[in-house]
């Protein structure tokens, strides 16, 4: 078993606490009408942070679904800035600048999994070092893209790590209505590569599993499917009411296994953490997200920005629409010759 170092574990807890703190701040911002729909991270922290901490940001890629970006500090502070841009609805939210090897939120479930395979394959074709870590959930595993991509990755032996964060719920659909398989990890058998199930509340276990998968991928031994079992401690998103379907006792039981509390207890026992550090980390996280929020709000937005970046150059049609928009024509489509 590969264990993270003390310093790594401390840093992982910093990231986990920051992620939850910032996610909660974003929840508040949404409830204050200041940002759009967001998906709280509560319960996913160890699965995300433990995985990402095995990666080398200078060569490894991360393809998130939508719950992860707030926990990707390892890839740099610009991620948070783009999370906030994305959440206030600024078009630049999707533009995480090169060379940061992170893709923006993917709202369409599982569609990023074939991208991950193609990207990993493209890395090997160009002899680039690095692996691709792709996040998805238990619900996404029912999508065709998961099977198509898993199959393709197996055939190609691509250096990709499939990380299925099984949080027990696809909005309101429990996992027994999602699959009859023994586990999500078991599905790897059909693809011809290993499937591993880990306790996603145990950051060390996640770290070990992803580390092993990465070593395999770098050694040319192909992909790994990892199922990190967690429990979604919050609603699916700000638009969801889980009290309609999550049994309260399950939730209470899951709260007892809170990944942050678990790591915190361990680090406190070894003198690596205490309440003051915790408070400092939370304060810093709030300061960071406030700064990112302010920066996002002050990011310029041109009146015709929505028309940018559809094509490398505007088509004639689009150019006319842009001109109409900029000239303030109410009938922005009146590009034709009326008279």
């Amino acid at each position, binding site marked *: 078993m590969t264990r993270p170092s003390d310093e790594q574990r401390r840093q992982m807890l910093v990231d986990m606490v920051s992620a939850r703190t910032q996610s909660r701040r974003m929840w508040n911002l949404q409830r204050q009408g200041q940002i759009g729909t967001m998906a709280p991270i509560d319960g996913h922290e160890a699965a995300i942070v433990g995985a990402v901490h095995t990666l080398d940001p200078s060569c490894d890629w991360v393809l998130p679904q939508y719950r992860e970006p707030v926990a990707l500090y390892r890839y740099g502070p610009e991620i948070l800035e783009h999370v906030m841009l994305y959440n206030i609805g600024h078009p630049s939210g999707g533009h995480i600048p090169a060379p940061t090897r992170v893709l923006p939120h993917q709202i369409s479930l599982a569609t990023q999994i074939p991208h991950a395979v193609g990207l990993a394959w493209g890395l090997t074709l160009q002899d680039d070092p690095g692996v691709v870590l792709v996040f998805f959930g238990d619900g996404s595993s029912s999508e065709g893209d998961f099977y198509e991509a898993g199959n393709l990755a197996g055939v190609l032996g691509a250096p990709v790590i499939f990380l299925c964060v099984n949080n027990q719920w696809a909005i309101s659909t429990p996992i027994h209505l999602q699959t009859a398989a023994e586990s999500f990890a078991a599905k790897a058998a059909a693809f011809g590569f290993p499937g591993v199930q880990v306790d996603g509340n145990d950051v060390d276990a996640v770290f070990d599993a992803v580390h092993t998968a990465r070593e395999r991928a770098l050694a040319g031994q192909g992909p790994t499917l990892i199922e990190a079992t967690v429990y979604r401690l919050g609603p699916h998103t700000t638009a969801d009411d889980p009290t309609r379907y999550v049994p*309260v*006792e399950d939730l209470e039981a899951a709260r*007892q296994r809170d990944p942050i509390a678990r790591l915190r207890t361990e680090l406190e026992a070894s003198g690596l953490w205490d309440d*003051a*550090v915790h408070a400092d980390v939370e304060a810093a996280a709030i300061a960071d997200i406030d700064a990112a929020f302010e920066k996002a709000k002050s990011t310029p937005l041109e009146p015709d920005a929505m028309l940018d970046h559809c094509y490398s150059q505007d088509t004639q049609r689009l150019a006319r629409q842009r001109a109409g928009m900029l000239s303030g024509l109410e009938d922005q489509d009146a590009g034709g010759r009326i008279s």
Partner: protein
Amino acid sequence: MVVGEVASPVDLLVIGGGPGGYAAALHAARLGRQVTLVERESLGGACLNVGCIPSKALIEVADAVAAPGRIAAWGVKATAAVDMVGVHDHLLAVVGDLTSGVAGLLEGAGVRVMSGTARFSRPNRVAVELDELVEHLEFRHAIVATGSRPIELPGLPLDGERVVGSAELLFSTELPDELVLVGGGYVGVELACAFAKLGSRVTVVEVEDRILPSFGKRIGRTVERGLRDLGIGLCLGHSATGVNDDGLAISGPDGDLVLHADRIGVVVGRRPNSDMVGISETGASLDERGLVLVDEQRRATDRVFAIGDLTDGPALAHKATAEAEVAVDAACGRPSAFDPTCIPMIVFGDPQVLSVGLDRDAAAAVGLEPTSSRFPFAASGRARTLGDTGGYVEVVADEAGTVIGVQAVGAHVAELAGEAALAVETAATVEDLAGTIHAHPTLGESIMEAALGLAGRPVHRA
């Protein structure tokens, strides 16, 4: 020694040696009465022996166990390991000191203490069961302060081992791994916090949809968050239905389930010990809850007074002590009445809770037009130095500016009870509080700050 039912005359009889009974005995002795006190178990009552005192001692122990994590940031590196046998002995020592102190006071005041079980046989007579014989006493006045006992739930009989009451929990010599507490009142909250800090995994089952149902909604909600932060599970809106090998069966709106537990504490409240003493024989009346009906002077009959948990109101030691003085004064022909404006209520949880007088909702409910102001500890320098800035103090005033309530949630707020109660009891105004110089830095300043907020000139505002 008298045999047969030949009664010995006594002047003033006190039944029960708890905070009500012994205070009554001492006060009556001071006024020159000949006092006899009958106690069935040990002096000090539930409070000293199995309630307030040992629970506070245990809570201090738990805080000490939890301290190293909290104080590491202060540059203090410490570790704590708990030895429950040692804790048990410590609690016994604390209790022993205080009960022997009570015995000493009674002896010094010339009170005759009988160790036995009293039961009324006639309006002016009790039979006291001593070790092997019964002694009959005919009294001029009797003050009954027999207290209360924990309510047991049908289907959840206490076995003293796995299913226990608060007393057994307090004096545990082993730490339960998984402790389920049935009841989310103040006892449940205090025990939950203490055992969570000691290292147990604790779940609280409460039939209401919030904990501390006898406190205001906002307080319950704040404490709920505190419990969750300690990792305490909450099953609200659930009732315990029985116990089996796995643990505690509970039932709620979503169905039934079983909570794993190696110990189950039943802390659902207390019932008055009016039945055991046979007070009906004196002509006193009981209500449907078993409470003795008394007048303003705590008089149940022309010669029998009842105080403490036997009468309506919160089952709190300080209420019993206050009633003791009223009843004794009345028995001595002095003008007296039990007419407090407030009885402070405290929960020694994490956070602590203090409630004095009316909260805003209660004030509005009785037709007042209350105003209130909260001061958060986040803005208190003292709270910062204590290392816990959660919570607030809220001062409630009526439309004339008279302070009618103080509520507080946070670390150490129990110690604010004195000033809060004094303000409400003396009908102090907001200006009285705002204008009284409070020592700096203390948590007590927060009361002044909240009052300044009400007076329209807050100083330290978040």
